[in-house]
């Protein structure tokens, strides 16, 4: 079975990875009180603390800054966790890979699904921020869903690329984690780019800027530049193609590397 056929079958057979992904969360939090919402509370507190402090430092109104920060941080949380866990997705799934006939792509879908569910839980923070700050919401907010789909496709491709490299070279996950920390500061999450800065390559060459913008801007009822959509869709497409090529080339070797 060729790689694209395998992936198509895995998508068709979504019951497998959606149940396993959901089970990951359900059983992890079974004996806790608040469950996955603990993550929400800790994210909320961080956002509040940074929000109030940096709003003062940047001389912005908290009513403008905190919603912006909240959206950015929660989207980044999704990106960060998915990439970090994604590096190790085959290593973590080694027992299953070596004892069952489940196709390897299942583990990638399971990871994305699990993190998507957690993202939806974290979304509560944005809702709380909205009930407090009540910024104008427009129907164009629904475009955030399209943005999320594009982000999902990008992360799927990226996880395919990174997981293969990290399974073969076991020091890569550390390097990826460090690069992500760097990217967090390079991306406009804590800071807002002025018009002048938007033109600088440091901003627009960073695909995460566009990927975060296409989700964040609709939620904040801000306009998204066509350029942002272009870069987001383009980078998602490119990394997906690269991921699929690498998966096709290396998937039969992955079990040997575990």
């Amino acid at each position, binding site marked *: 079975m060729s790689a694209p056929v395998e992936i198509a079958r895995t998508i068709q057979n979504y019951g*497998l990875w959606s149940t396993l992904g959901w*089970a990951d969360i359900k059983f992890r939090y*079974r004996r806790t009180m608040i469950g996955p919402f603990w993550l929400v509370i800790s994210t909320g507190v961080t956002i509040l603390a940074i929000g109030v402090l940096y709003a003062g430092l940047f001389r912005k109104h908290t009513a403008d800054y905190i919603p912006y920060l909240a959206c950015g941080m929660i989207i980044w949380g999704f990106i960060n966790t998915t990439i970090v866990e994604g590096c190790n997705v085959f290593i973590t799934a080694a*027992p299953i890979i070596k*004892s*069952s006939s489940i196709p390897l792509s299942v583990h990638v879908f399971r990871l994305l699904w699990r993190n998507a569910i957690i993202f939806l839980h974290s979304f509560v923070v944005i809702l709380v921020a909205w009930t407090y700050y009540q910024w104008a919401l427009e129907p164009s907010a629904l475009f955030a869903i399209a943005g999320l789909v594009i982000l999902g496709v990008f992360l799927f491709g990226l996880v395919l690329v990174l997981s293969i490299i990290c399974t*073969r070279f076991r020091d890569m996950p550390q390097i990826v984690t460090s690069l992500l920390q760097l990217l967090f500061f390079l991306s406009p999450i804590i800071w807002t780019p002025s018009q002048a800065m938007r033109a600088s390559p440091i901003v627009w060459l960073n695909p995460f800027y566009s990927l975060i913008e296409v989700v964040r801007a609709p939620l904040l009822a801000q306009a998204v530049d066509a350029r942002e959509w272009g870069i987001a869709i383009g980078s998602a497409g490119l990394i997906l193609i690269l991921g699929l090529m690498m998966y096709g080339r290396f998937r039969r*070797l992955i079990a040997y590397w575990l």
Partner: protein
Amino acid sequence: MVKIELKNVGVDFILYETSARSLKKTAFRTAVGGFISNKDDGSKTMVRALQDISLTLNDGDRLALMGPNGAGKTTLLRVLAGIYYPTSGSITVQGQCVPLFDISLGLDDEATGYENIMLRGLVMGLDRKEIEKRVEEISEFSGLGEFLHLPVRTYSSGMTLRLLFSIATSVNSDILLMDEWIAMGDADFIERANQRLHGVVSRSRILAFASHNPAYLKAVCNRAVLLEAGRIVAEGSVDDVLSHYQSDRQVDAAQAAVKEAADQNEATSEAGSVSASQQGLPPPPESAPSEIRRSDPVV
């Protein structure tokens, strides 16, 4: 149509982390384990787990895989399961494989018995509807009753085993792959469990079963293959291959005894004392190989 065809299948494990310089010879065979060598350019170490395996399995074949530890039985099963894609040769599989290598795979301690039935079933490759159809017969066979509503961490290990066994033996598979007999649990369960395991085996259209236990192999298989250092050295009916394997082991044991005697002879003659005959070891059989070196006693 269910069929498996292997043509000159080879599996080489390349060890990326070891240096080729740590091996004294370029390639050597060991009595236990596979065939270790350096890759052609000497840069990496490699274990040749399977070599030149050609085999065809058709509907109704129940194949026994025999051989010493490290011969390649488990590797061959994993090739059949699609886990290790051959590094040389080709394999064609028609039909769905259910590998029963690890019956606790996918088990989650926090999940209830019923939830674990779903988890285990999914990991075995069944889809949700198939699993839901089987839940009742699995729970009935396990005899765990109301406990199935409780998380598996509250079970004794025997109860967990009953549950896992019931789930594993509920499958209807085209191709069933087993690595050793599945552990069955306590005394009153064993009788029913035996019947059930024979049931699942007979429901499968092809079976490949690796084991060291001749009784199980004779009970369940109709063909056999003997593996040694990754190669098939004998093929045929279960009885034929078993007798070949057992006579091989007698020759190996005798050779090992002779070699041990020779080594002790060398060691003690360097110290200037006793020779082999005085130690009361059995004389070497006529078919002993000429590899044994005897040094002259140093007085």
